């Protein structure tokens, strides 16, 4: 009767079984003490190997769990942007507010300058007006409505009748306007590039032709792709 029958595929044996193994007796056998000692060593080695194996298995499981956790975190990170740091948002907001304030101040400054210029403009007109009025009073002349030009749609009354001096100031202001604008125009290179002098319409008094020119540089305005069923024709003079 033996724990170690000769044969293939012996089952795995625990260190305990190795230590207390018994063997069938034969003539010319080994020294039993030696055999026992050897079996003890083998059993100890198997014991150590098994312990090491268990440690490694535990460590392996720990590592596998770590890898899984990192992997899901990586996927999440790819799907969602990283948490934006609140302090960074606050800092960025501050910078944006500084930029906004600077732009706003520049705009406000420009606005104030323009407003001051406009107030000055009003004041100058007012003063010129008063000067003309008092000059007219001194001269004692009061000419009835000699407006140098008829304004369209002049309905209703209740405005001061202009006096020649006032009219002179007004005309002077208008001429100055036109000259000022001519200077502006001359300064711009647009004229050269345009190849045609812009029409300073206000410089010339309009002739009272009944032709309304809706479109500079083209005789007639016509429709295209604008379905109104009209075919443009010259107006019938009888309808005037």
């Amino acid at each position: 009767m033996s724990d170690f029958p000769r044969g293939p595929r012996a089952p795995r044996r625990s260190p305990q079984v190795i230590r207390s193994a018994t063997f069938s007796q034969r003539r010319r056998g080994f020294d039993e003490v030696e055999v026992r000692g050897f079996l003890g060593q083998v059993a100890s080695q198997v014991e150590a190997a098994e312990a090491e194996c268990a440690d490694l298995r535990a460590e392996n499981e720990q590592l596998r769990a770590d890898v899984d956790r990192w992997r899901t975190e990586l996927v999440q990170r790819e799907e969602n942007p990283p948490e934006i740091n609140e302090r960074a948002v606050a800092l960025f907001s501050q910078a944006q507010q500084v930029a906004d304030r600077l732009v706003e101040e520049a705009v406000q400054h420009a606005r104030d300058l323009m407003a001051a210029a406009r107030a000055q403009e009003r004041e100058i007109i007012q003063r010129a007006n008063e000067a003309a009025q008092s000059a007219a009073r001194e001269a004692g002349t009061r000419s009835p409505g000699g407006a140098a030009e008829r304004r369209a749609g002049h309905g209703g009354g209740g405005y001061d009748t202009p006096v020649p001096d006032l009219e002179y100031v007004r005309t002077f202001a208008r001429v100055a306007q036109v000259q000022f604008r001519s200077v502006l125009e001359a300064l711009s290179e647009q004229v050269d590039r345009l190849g045609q002098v812009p029409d300073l319409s206000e410089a010339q008094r309009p002739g009272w032709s009944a032709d309304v020119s809706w479109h500079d540089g083209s005789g007639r305005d016509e429709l295209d792709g604008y379905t109104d069923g009209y075919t443009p024709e010259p107006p019938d003079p009888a309808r005037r």
Partner: protein
Amino acid sequence: MDTAALQSSWQIVAKSGDDVPLYFYSHLFLSHPELRELFPISMSAQRDKLVGALGRIVSQVDQLGEVAPFIAQLGREHRRFSVVAEHYGAVGASLLATLKHFLGPAWTPELAADWSAAYGLIAQTMVQAAEEAADTTPAWWSAEVTAIERRTLDVSVLRLEPHERYDYRAGQSFAMEVPQRPRQWRYFSPANAPRRDGSIELHVQLVDGGQVSTSIVRSTRVGDTVRLGAPIGTALTLPDDFAGDLLMVAGGTGLAPLRAVLEQLDRRWQVTGEAPRTHLFHGVRLPWSLYERELLSQLAHRPWFDYTEAVSDDASYPGPRGPVGTVAARGGNWRGRTALVCGSPAMVEHTVAKLVEAGISREHIRFESFGAAGDVNQSQQEATGKVMGSE
């Protein structure tokens, strides 16, 4: 979706005022630095628009039918700012982060899911509207500046020639971007009815301190290429067979869309001999700002057209003086007339009030207001309305 929860949480968030959009945009640019360049340097105008648009959407989220056209319009408007479908995800993430920041412990997983679903719906509507529009119209049209005329000290008349066909109706407006001021779009109105050669005239008023109008009046050159958005607006447009009489009230360059409508009426008159009786009041501060006097005086020889000028800041002016709304309201019996009003927001508000006092019913007074999608009036308004994309 719990719409009541959305609305009550938005009310809590909105209490933080300007800090909300400030946080939102900072978060957005930190998480997606590449989006920063879609916006102008100064973000102050931008912030009101975001809150305004979101507030409007959230308050009507339970009547999606009411608010859907507004959202679709926002989506179409955003095309010209080079906003693409991917940007919506970034905006959504920053929006949720912003709500979470301001709601603190009130930010529950359920609320987060509701907001996420609501935003998904908004983004989908915007993207769909943009994609549908992309089938028929470009994101913007380029046009060349072919003429510039400095009509007064602070009004310039520009002529543009779009490179591709640009269809619009007299009385409409569009947003325009000039190369000197990238990402700052401003609304202008063609001052002419559509022409065969496609050219468009704009009246540009220099706005005190205005970044864009100043640069257009001072430094736009013939040969410059500008970008135009799609034409919008219906309040000042008239059908070709419009019946009834008209009262037009224009402040400064608010004249532009009304001039276009007048041209439309005049073409009709030239062909049929008929046009609505129309009285135009043009109001300016000083007499020399009456920059269309010549044309309008000539047009006043037409049997159907009357023209009155009003000057507000020159006490010596020998014609009608005062705010144009006041002058127009007392200038005749306007009962039964349809009024078209255009000018600065203050001028429009004042004029509408005066006309109502004078007995014109409110539904017969027409003026452009584009709400959160931008107020339109030729450059008086240095603002457009959008949530993303450049101004």
